[in-house]
């Protein structure tokens, strides 16, 4: 017998995931136009890999395949893996990353909704540890034509050092480590930088921001995580920058560089592996921002968000437990 409520909002996991994919489009468009059109090929490879992997493992687990494939969650994971990987990776690295995300992180923990870690971030961390050089090669904006990009992805032609450059974050960090360098001098020296972040890459940040605002408007995500992440990153980098402007990049640079905007709206906000209470979301996102900043500035990796996310994923049960909101009638408040 069917019990009340007898009516449902016309919402579905599929529509949620579709909205996320739509929200990624402005960022992807900027990616194609500004940096590397080959990202479209990577998205295709990753999507196919994710769907095939999902179908195979569901067969192994003797679970119905159709509903899981049509919920589009695997596609979202695949796209996020691609967008946090360098675009000129050989295809098999992308495939491997997606397999790790779908098979190991998602299904070995029980499938959709069960994974304690962010699948795309585990894939990123695994790959950067396994293939540090491949995972550090980022194309400078507009320097490589599409054919070369395609050769790099499909053919694995690897005469890379000539054509790849450091990311803005990496250039800033290594630049600042040379003696006598200041933020000013680093910014002037290299052609890596644009107006506020990496040249070309800053447009991606804008695209992700636009997509994020779309998701906020559609109530796919709440404001807590993006605001806490962006604000904390700005405040922490602002404190260092104010204390020593010559040695620490300004907040805007940190926000427009690397995966900050992608993370703020699409990575940190992953509902499955993130904190869920309103206060917990603030703590979770702020924690990621702090750890990411520290790794960016003082650590050994070009970008710290992935590690920061995984570290905070570990804290989620504790955060959620300690931040349960007061239940109606338990606040004892009178106006």
């Amino acid at each position, binding site marked *: 017998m069917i019990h009340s409520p*007898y009516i449902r909002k016309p919402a579905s996991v599929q529509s949620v995931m579709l909205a996320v994919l739509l929200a990624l489009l402005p960022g992807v468009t900027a990616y194609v136009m500004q940096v590397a059109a080959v990202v479209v090929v990577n998205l295709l490879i990753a999507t196919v890999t994710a769907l095939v992997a999902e179908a195979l493992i569901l067969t192994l687990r003797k679970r119905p395949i159709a509903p899981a494939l049509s919920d589009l969650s695997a596609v979202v994971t695949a796209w996020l893996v691609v967008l946090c990987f360098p675009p000129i990776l050989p295809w098999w690295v992308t495939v491997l990353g997606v397999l790790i995300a779908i098979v190991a992180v998602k299904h070995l923990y029980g499938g959709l*909704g069960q994974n304690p870690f962010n699948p795309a971030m585990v894939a990123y961390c695994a790959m950067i540890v396994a293939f540090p050089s491949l995972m550090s090669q980022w194309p400078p904006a507009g320097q490589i034509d599409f054919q070369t990009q395609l050769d790099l992805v499909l053919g694995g032609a690897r005469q890379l050092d000539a054509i790849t450059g450091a990311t803005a974050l990496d250039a800033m960090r290594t630049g600042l480590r040379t003696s006598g360098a200041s933020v000013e001098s680093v910014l002037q020296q290299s052609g890596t930088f644009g107006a506020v972040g990496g040249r070309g890459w800053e447009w991606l940040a804008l695209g992700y921001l636009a997509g994020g605002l779309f998701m906020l408007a559609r109530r796919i995500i*709440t404001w807590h995580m993006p605001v806490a992440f962006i604000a904390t990153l700005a405040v922490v980098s602002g404190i260092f920058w104010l204390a020593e402007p010559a040695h620490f990049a300004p907040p805007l640079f940190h926000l427009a560089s690397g995966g900050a905007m992608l993370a703020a709206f699409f990575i940190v906000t992953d509902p499955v592996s993130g904190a869920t209470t309103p206060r917990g979301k603030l703590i979770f996102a702020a924690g990621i921002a702090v750890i990411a900043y520290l790794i960016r500035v003082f650590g050994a990796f070009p970008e710290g968000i992935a590690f920061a996310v995984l570290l905070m994923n570990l804290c989620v049960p504790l955060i959620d437990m300690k931040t*349960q909101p007061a*239940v*109606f*009638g338990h606040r004892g408040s009178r106006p």
Partner: protein
Amino acid sequence: MIARLFSFHGGIKPDSHKNESSSLPIAAAPLPPRLTIPLRQSVRSVARCLVAPGQRVLKGERIGAGEGPLGTDVHASTSGTVVGLAPCAMAHASGLNTLAVIIEPDGKDEWIERRAFDHHAVPREAALRYLSTCGIVGMGGAGFPTHIKLGNGRGIETLIINGAECEPWITCDDRLMRERAAEILSGAAILHELIGARRTLVGIEDNKPEAIRAMREAATGFPGLVDIVAIPTRYPAGGEKQLIRVLTGIEIAHGKLGTEFGVQCFNVGTAQAVHRAIHHGEPLVSRVVTLTGNVRHPGNYEVLVGTPVETLLALAAPKPDTDRYLMGGPMMGITIADLSVPIGKTSNCIIAASPALFPPPPPELPCIRCGACARACPADLQPFELYWFSRAKNVGKAQEYHLFDCIECGSCAFVCPSHIPLVDYFRFSKSEIWARERELKTSDQARERFEFRNYRQEREKEEKAAKLAAKAAETRAKLTGSAAPTDAATGDDPKKALIAAALARAKQQAAAIEPRNTDTPHAGVPGASPGIASRREQPDLHDSDATS
């Protein structure tokens, strides 16, 4: 005056579907061929039957006498002949049966002699008793007796009349407010006086502008009595705690009643029924019911209590693809298992459901912890956490996360993108907890009985031993006394020593015995006696259960 409105967390905005029936005036439903009037018309109380088959009754005549403090009387809803007493299905999710009086109407609809009741001329208690003899219960939801809710006439600052009607489809209160606003306010004035309120507020959702206008117009006839307040349309604004929150800002604490916060809430229908009882001497024998959904002729009808749903449905002409019927709204209503179920005092709406109007929910998908449920929950719960614990049958944890604060309004299940029937999980967990508690209670009682038996046996043994020892000592004392009379002065001591030794032995034995079927090991069996004593003080638990 209302300074401002407050808001409650969460809530949803489902399609209201009120237009189908809101424009249709209340019409009297024709007399059904048979009335089935359940003797259980208010919570926890079945009325004692006062009639016998074959007896003629008039409309409004008492056919059941309410028993106990929560009892209210039951009345014949029309004139006719009692043709039988039989169990009938109740309009309740449990589908349980209750005893009902079956009346065959004679078609005259002849009233008993009706006399207005001057509640000013009698003490307050008499007025409350009168309401209970008129069978007045809350017509909004649970059917709680009104005379109980009116309390002791002190400590209520704010009286709230609930005209929110937040469930989709239902329009009976809307129509009642549009057409009988003056009666509602007259009833509100009586309630105001009886409860000793300082102010009275009427809360109406702002999607009922005509009702608000009608009530405001009528309010001019009761200067200074009420404030008619339009509240934002957001389900479940008509939930008692939510409405109190919106109108007064008071948050009724968990496990507390409105009265403890100086506020009490009555449905508009109840207020009108109070007016009819006091000023017209009419007991509660009918109510307005909305017939809507997948029907050709939706409408609002004045329906006699006891009218079987099936005869009522004929008025609305359900369309052929109707697959089931709901009683109440689509958010909290129940599926009617048996169409012979009679309309009761709390039956506000019958909805014909079709697969097109109420499609079966899509298959359940895994929870993605999106938190939509938590954002919709008017009780500020985290339904997805409760779902997790309920699924894992970790009912202890579910209770820790305030499972029992769930009002089962259905908002969480409504918004869930994974189509998880969250409320069903919570109902399951609650029933599981109740079952465990019942089990615990019976095992506790069994253990106490067992321990008492052990204790009694030990005590008897002790007493026997002591008696024997005393006797032995006595004979020995006699013997020694006759042999050496000089020892008579000290003869007491060996006797005492013997008794003491016997007692010590008995005690040792008692301590050595351990209760065998207990969860918590007892230090000594006599330790169980406080439990036993308390049990003795309330001699017949089972009897009192049976009669309540």
